[in-house]
């Protein structure tokens, strides 16, 4: 039994440089082994980590590099086998990343696994924690890494993303459908699993999985956001917790239960207008981005590398490493060298806007845009009303909530539903905002403060 949710609010944005799936049903190429890989604690939002290795230690893929300080249960595992080459620290000795020099021959830690149906809830949680896979489970409220001792009322998985340049999960899952289904079955041992799919996926080989409840979401971006799914299917109330996990991590869980080995390879989309060859590649978490952009980026002009998609991803560089939650990376024109006189009144036919003061709505049609990273305006107070609501498909007054966060009014934030949101849900609103407020940063900071107050 599938429930269909029609989503009207939102915005689909088409950018140049969509990653091309492999031709003629071929499989995605794996990248050659790079020299060093790195895991960045900052990717795992909300976790204070304790190091478990020292420089020079030898580790296998799946061996824990660090764990969370609070419970010590959640392990963060090395994506490859090799030598801990460096522990890079920043200000106040904060750990920025743990670098692993990869062995020529890769080995990974073995776990004893049994049939999924034989696992109890706690056994399954422990297995995921030990194998470094629980690190990919996040929770609402606060959008931080989940605590394994919590009892969530549900686990939400989204099998699609409508973000610009996002990896198409159907491409990613090709050939791994059984692992995906088994991953879902494994999660169903822990709590009720809600899988959100797009209408095109109803008859795809990702289904059926009788253990999970399936919801179909039909609508523009951000209809693929798990936050939207939660808000429609089973909203979070104060005092409740739900867990969310990326579909690509669900495949890893299925793989672990099939092979008994920790394997952090995933298929990611490499795209953007400045990527020479937009394509899909297969590579472990923590791969250097220089290796991910093997075909290189276009020369001439300044290029920004984004770890993630253009709306949610972090600003990064080729010297950085693939983020733990990045399912795509992209190269965009930075735009800091563009000189554009009188832009506020120019027709700007090549620029995208949702505003009808531009003609792109009239003539743009279905074209893909090449957008640079300029803000294209100064930051202002919230002037226009209804801008966020048009692209915020949740039963929440987005503008009022953001104002409550800015003013630090915690009671009002709670009342307006801050427990149901994550920064990524505000990404499209941040894109269209004419006041150019950094909504995702504002929401992140608000959630952090709230979490501190409530702890």
């Amino acid at each position, binding site marked *: 039994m599938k429930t269909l949710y029609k989503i009207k609010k939102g915005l689909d944005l088409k950018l140049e440089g969509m990653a091309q799936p492999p031709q003629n049903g071929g499989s995605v190429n794996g990248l050659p082994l790079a020299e060093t890989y790195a895991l960045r604690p900052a990717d795992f939002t909300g976790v204070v980590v304790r190091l478990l290795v020292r420089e020079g230690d030898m580790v296998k893929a799946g061996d824990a590099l660090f764990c969370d300080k609070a419970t010590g249960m959640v392990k963060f595992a090395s994506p490859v086998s090799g030598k801990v080459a460096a522990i890079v620290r920043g200000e106040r000795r904060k750990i920025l990343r743990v670098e692993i020099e990869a062995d020529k021959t890769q080995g990974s830690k073995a776990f004893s696994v049994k049939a999924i149906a034989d696992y109890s809830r706690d056994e399954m949680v422990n297995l995921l924690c030990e194998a470094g896979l629980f690190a990919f489970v996040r929770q609402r409220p606060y959008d931080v890494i989940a605590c394994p001792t919590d009892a969530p009322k549900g686990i939400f998985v989204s099998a699609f993303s409508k973000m610009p340049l996002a990896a198409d999960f159907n491409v990613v899952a090709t050939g791994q459908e059984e692992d995906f289904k088994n991953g879902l079955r494994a999660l169903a041992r822990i709590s009720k699993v809600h899988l959100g799919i797009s209408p095109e996926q109803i008859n795809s080989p990702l289904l059926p999985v009788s253990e999970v409840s399936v919801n179909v979401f039909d609508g523009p971006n951000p209809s693929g956001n798990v936050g939207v799914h939660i808000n429609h299917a089973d909203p979070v109330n104060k005092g409740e917790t739900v867990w969310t996990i990326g579909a690509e991590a669900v495949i890893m869980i299925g793989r672990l239960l099939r092979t008994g080995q920790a394997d952090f390879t995933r298929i990611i989309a490499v795209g953007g207008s400045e990527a020479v060859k937009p394509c899909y590649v297969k590579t472990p978490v923590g791969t250097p981005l220089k290796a991910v952009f093997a075909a290189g980026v276009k020369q001439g002009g300044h290029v920004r590398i984004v770890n993630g998609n253009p709306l949610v991803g972090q*600003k990064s560089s080729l010297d950085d490493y693939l983020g733990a939650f990045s399912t795509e990376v992209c190269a965009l024109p930075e735009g800091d060298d563009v000189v554009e006189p009188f832009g506020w009144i120019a027709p700007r036919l090549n620029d995208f806007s949702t505003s009808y003061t531009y003609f792109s709505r009239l003539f743009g049609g279905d074209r893909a845009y090449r957008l640079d990273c300029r803000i294209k305006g100064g930051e202002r107070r919230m002037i226009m009303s209804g801008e966020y609501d048009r692209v915020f498909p949740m039963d929440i007054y987005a503008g*009022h909530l953001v104002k409550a966060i800015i003013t630090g009014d915690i009671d009002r934030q709670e009342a*307006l539903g801050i427990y149901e949101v994550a920064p990524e849900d505000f990404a499209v609103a941040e894109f269209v905002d004419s006041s150019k407020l950094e909504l995702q940063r504002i929401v992140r900071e608000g959630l952090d403060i709230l979490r501190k107050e409530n702890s």
Partner: protein
Amino acid sequence: MIKTIFDKLRPHFEEKGKLHAFYSVFEGMETFMLVPSTTSRTGVSIHDAIDSKRIMSFVVIALLPALLFGMYNIGYQNALAAGMVEQTSFWAMFFYGFLLVLPKIVVSYLVGLGIEFAVAQWKKEEIQEGYLVTGILIPMIVPVDCPLWMLALAVAFSVILCKEIFGGTGMNIFNPALCARAFLFFSYPTSMSGEKVWLAKEQVCSLGYNLPEATTMATPLGEAAAGTNISYSLSDMVLGFVPGSIGETSVVAIAIGALLLMYTRIASWKTIVSVFVGGAIVALLFNFFGPADNAVAGMSCWEHFAAGGFCFGAVFMATDPVTSARTEQGKYIYGLLIGMLAILIRVLNPGFPEGMMLAILFMNMFAPLIDYFFVQHNINKRLARGKQTAKK
């Protein structure tokens, strides 16, 4: 080219530069001429090309038809009073009005932007473009006879006391342009209403005609309030060939602006439509149940719409996103009440022939309350949901 000039000048305006006191002006001019090349640091990497500068510019563009017609109408009314309409060319009438309006616009921008620049410099913020719109609105809602010093005073009052003390554009409670008008209306009532102020009576650059000081000309609403029948035809009122504040007379010119604003979604059609619906309801009620001796109560709703500042207020004032209701459903109620109150004031208060200004200012005050009910509904729903699941 422009960029090299700005790059050359920048050191003078930066910290320790000689002209640092004018940094906000420099930055304002630079972002006016060139799109700032700052790129995003956190959050989304790409942005929509819209910004508040463009939004404000489009409001100004939408105001132009009404403004240009207002200029022409000043010349027309002057020629009409002199009995010389036949002999005066279109351009002579237009330039006469242009020469009378231009100083008002210049004064309004000089004073208003001067204060804004100073505040931006003081608070170390970017200049906000909200005053671009306010600065052109204010000259359009005063009578042509309004002296420049009065205008300057009103602008200073509204920018400082109605906007900046609340924190600038986006934070104000009342519409700044209407505050300026209200300030003038209550401080200098004889210069803002009555029968003497709607006519330009002196030649400018040998354009127009000198008229005797005693020449008067009543607005349609003024006539109705005085208990006489309106002497202007409905077509004149719709086209705008009647005396009134500079920008408010022509329904046609305002309608062009309204179409632009509604198409670009800068102004909410919900607000505009509901203002008219509200006005029509109350006007009809007065038609049927109003006192027989009250001429305004007998006006039909289209006469109400065509007279005075009803259309102008509905399109350009009530829709100000900052001071109007922010929830989508709230906009219906907000607009409805503005229309109803405006007609109510027109009919029942003989002291104020025009009710639009007070109706909008009054509803500005209540917009947060309207929003409160809709937001609170959402909050209550969430609370109820929480309680229900807690029971299970």
